[in-house]
């Protein structure tokens, strides 16, 4: 007997929408098994993971703060992945955005400034993220260098640059030698939306970005170009679309969105540059993009769900003394189940009964 994967003629549209939900359910079920194996009450642990982050307004605001960078980054990554451009380096572009935006905050520190500072920081952050993302794009189109490797390796370049800056030239002179920059002035902090929580303007920006991207993909010729290049590159050339120019465009957009997320995060939650500014948003956003089926609206929903696991993980650390690595396990399980569900969506599995003497073909 053997298992045979054969391609389905037409995969159901409904199952396409349902499959991420099945993946989530399977993740929660395996989580329950995992907690039980660790000697914890699965119901209680799952409640801390998945219910405590949505239990009150303060928690909901935190959720929005965590979901914002994930949504911003994953929408950009979706554009890349739809067009077969594998930008894996959003984490680095996030950091570079924080560095570029932070440069303005530090330069205006202690000098007369005004309400233009934070918008300027956002612009600089987008330029920084896009500039870093353009490196793999140009290498790919000019020299056929694999963008997966270059974009990934540039993450370490950006992280080490930030590390050096906050230990060296940008270290706060009055900061007791801690490796961190000065606290940003009020004008250089991300604009908050409420007085009792940390939700900020970044969440509104993310919602606008989601809507713009959804409109781009469904209604605009450029969106068609993105889908076509990913679907059938030769047909895209026949349509007269330039693959190189599109590669630059989507890398620039996704880099800019990651950079924007970086400066919003630094300006909104830390208020200064530190050696580490991200719990891995740039990498988690890859999961978000796929869980959201590379669809901007899907990214919004998936981003909120992944943000729940981040906050749930922190809460579990406090309430259950679970290591933060459990969060990583959850995220890994989720990506695994998403991809597995997709495989079953595209292929059907059959058990083929074969004669005993046959060796597998």
């Amino acid at each position, binding site marked *: 007997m053997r298992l045979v994967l054969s391609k389905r003629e037409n995969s159901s549209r409904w199952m396409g929408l349902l499959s991420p939900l099945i993946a989530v359910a399977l993740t929660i079920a395996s989580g329950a098994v995992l907690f039980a194996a660790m000697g914890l009450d699965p119901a209680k642990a799952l409640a801390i993971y998945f219910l405590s982050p949505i239990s009150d307004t303060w928690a909901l605001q935190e959720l929005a703060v965590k979901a914002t960078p994930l949504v911003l980054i994953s929408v950009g990554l979706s554009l890349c992945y739809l067009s077969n451009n594998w930008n894996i380096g959003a984490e680095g572009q996030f950091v570079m955005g924080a560095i570029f935006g932070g440069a303005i905050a530090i330069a205006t520190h202690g000098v007369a400034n005004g309400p233009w500072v934070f918008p300027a920081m956002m612009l600089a952050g987008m330029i920084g993220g896009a500039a870093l993302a353009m490196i793999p794009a140009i290498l790919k189109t000019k020299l056929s260098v694999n963008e997966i490797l270059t974009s990934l390796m540039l993450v370490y370049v950006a992280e080490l640059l930030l590390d050096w800056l906050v230990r060296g030239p940008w270290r706060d002179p009055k900061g007791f030698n801690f490796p961190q920059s000065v606290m940003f002035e009020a004008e250089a902090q991300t604009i908050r939306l409420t007085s009792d929580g940390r939700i900020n303007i970044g969440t509104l920006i993310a919602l606008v970005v989601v809507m713009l991207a959804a409109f781009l993909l469904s209604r605009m*010729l450029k969106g*068609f170009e993105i889908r076509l290049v990913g679907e059938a590159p*030769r047909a895209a*050339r026949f*349509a007269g679309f330039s693959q190189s120019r599109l590669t630059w465009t989507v890398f620039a957009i996704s880099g800019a969105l990651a950079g924007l997320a970086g400066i919003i995060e630094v300006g909104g939650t830390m208020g200064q540059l530190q050696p580490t500014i991200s719990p891995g948003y740039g990498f988690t956003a890859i999961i978000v993009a796929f869980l959201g089926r590379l669809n901007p609206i899907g990214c919004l929903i998936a981003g909120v769900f992944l943000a729940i696991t981040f906050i749930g993980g922190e809460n579990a650390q406090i309430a259950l003394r679970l290591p933060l690595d459990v969060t990583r396990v959850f995220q890994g399980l989720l990506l695994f189940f998403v991809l597995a569900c997709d495989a079953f969506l595209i292929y059907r599995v059959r058990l083929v009964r074969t004669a005993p003497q046959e060796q597998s*073909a």
Partner: protein
Amino acid sequence: MTTATPLMLASGIVKRFGALVANDSVDLAIGPGEVHALLGENGAGKSTLVKILYGLLQPDAGSLAWDGRTISLKSPAEARRLGVGMVFQHFSLFEALTVAENVALALDGTEPVSAVADRLVAVSEAYGLPLDPRREVWRLSVGERQRIEIVRCLMQHPRLLILDEPTSVLTPQETEGLFATLARVKAEGCAILYISHKLEEVRRICDRATILRHGKVVATCDPRQESAASLAQMMVGSKVTPTRHEPVLSDQAPFLRVQDLSLRSPDPHGTHLSGIDLEVRPGEITGIAGVAGNGQDELFAALSGEITAARPEVIILAGQPVGRDGINTRRKLGAAFVPEERLGHAAAPRLSLSDNALLAGHATNGFVRSGLVDKPGTLGWVDRVVAAFDVRKGPRDPAASALSGGNLQKFVVGRDILRNPRLLIVSQPTWGVDAGAAALIRQALVDLARSGAAVLVISQDLDELFEIADRMAVIFHGRLSPAQPMAGLAREAVGLLMGGSGFGPAEARGRDAA
């Protein structure tokens, strides 16, 4: 029926792929030493059946018998051990290896390459298939590559040789050579299963014919007792209307003029174009014949603008030098293009028909206003193409891959003909489509030319070009012969050009022996 025990007997073969029944209770009996034709349109189930006979696929039901003994073939290696050899339509050769190395790889033993080379020379001489065992495959023509495959089979002393559309890649002269070889193979008592849709060939060389339609055997007959028309009718299931076409010659100024076009192919094993001159006049169909792989893809890419030329003035379109311009500039000047590959080049398989209408028409059909796609507009265009070209489909706007080959081809040809182009360049317009769709497409091309458009048809199907072209040129090793009027043009003369005589010494590929 032969009274002797059949060499290979397939009974009640059923093979399903999902919902599609590719073979539906197929019976086939091949007698010893007989040349048996397997006839059918594309998609009739011929390839599925021979893959079962060669052990590549296992039937869902039914049985095979060899010499009257029931067998089950689980792999091609088992089939070869029994004495079944197969020459595929698409060769499985390593381009960078020599002829002898390729053959040695295919033989299951551990024979040294030098010994294989000696045997290879002996076999190839015995059957009139000259081959140099030391040459690398990439240097060889398609016809020579086919010889490798045939010799490779013959070296294993087959009792049944299966040939899948062997003449589709050959010139008329090479086809004659193949027939001579097959006569020798037959004389030695080896049976041949000959898969084709070329009816004249089948009538010439085959003793029996089994005709498949929609996965079922519709007839078994002696092809020599039938006419090509009666065979075609059995194959298609209805009478095929021939294209209405009388060759004409236009005296208008050419709409497309190509002067001394040379182009390096981006593909390392591609064919470079050198010094191509060509004129395409309004009102005429100009045909370009040639064996596959002689630069047709590169010529199409250069004319469409998918690859731009070195200088603008080598391609003059509507009086304007466009050699450096992209495909959409050329479309806006009135040109339209239909490439050879339907799925992946002419159309994106998983995108809807309206998206695929947008693909070719976004620069010319007014589908896009200030960056926004006019969705109702593209859908309306799909409806018009579907109605005008009889495209059969289920839902209103299905994915391109949901259409059958013939229906998708009608769509991709129709979406450009319907916008009344002043020039249509089409490559392999009826490759792999059913006879009904092919007839409709050919008639549409003729009608387009008669309405005053310039039409250029690049095709490997010589019969097709003789049916619809008004002038014809031949492409060989990236060079193009002068286009000649069809009146008085002999098939043999075209065949010689397809084989390269009359082109002078080749420079592009460095081929020194035929």
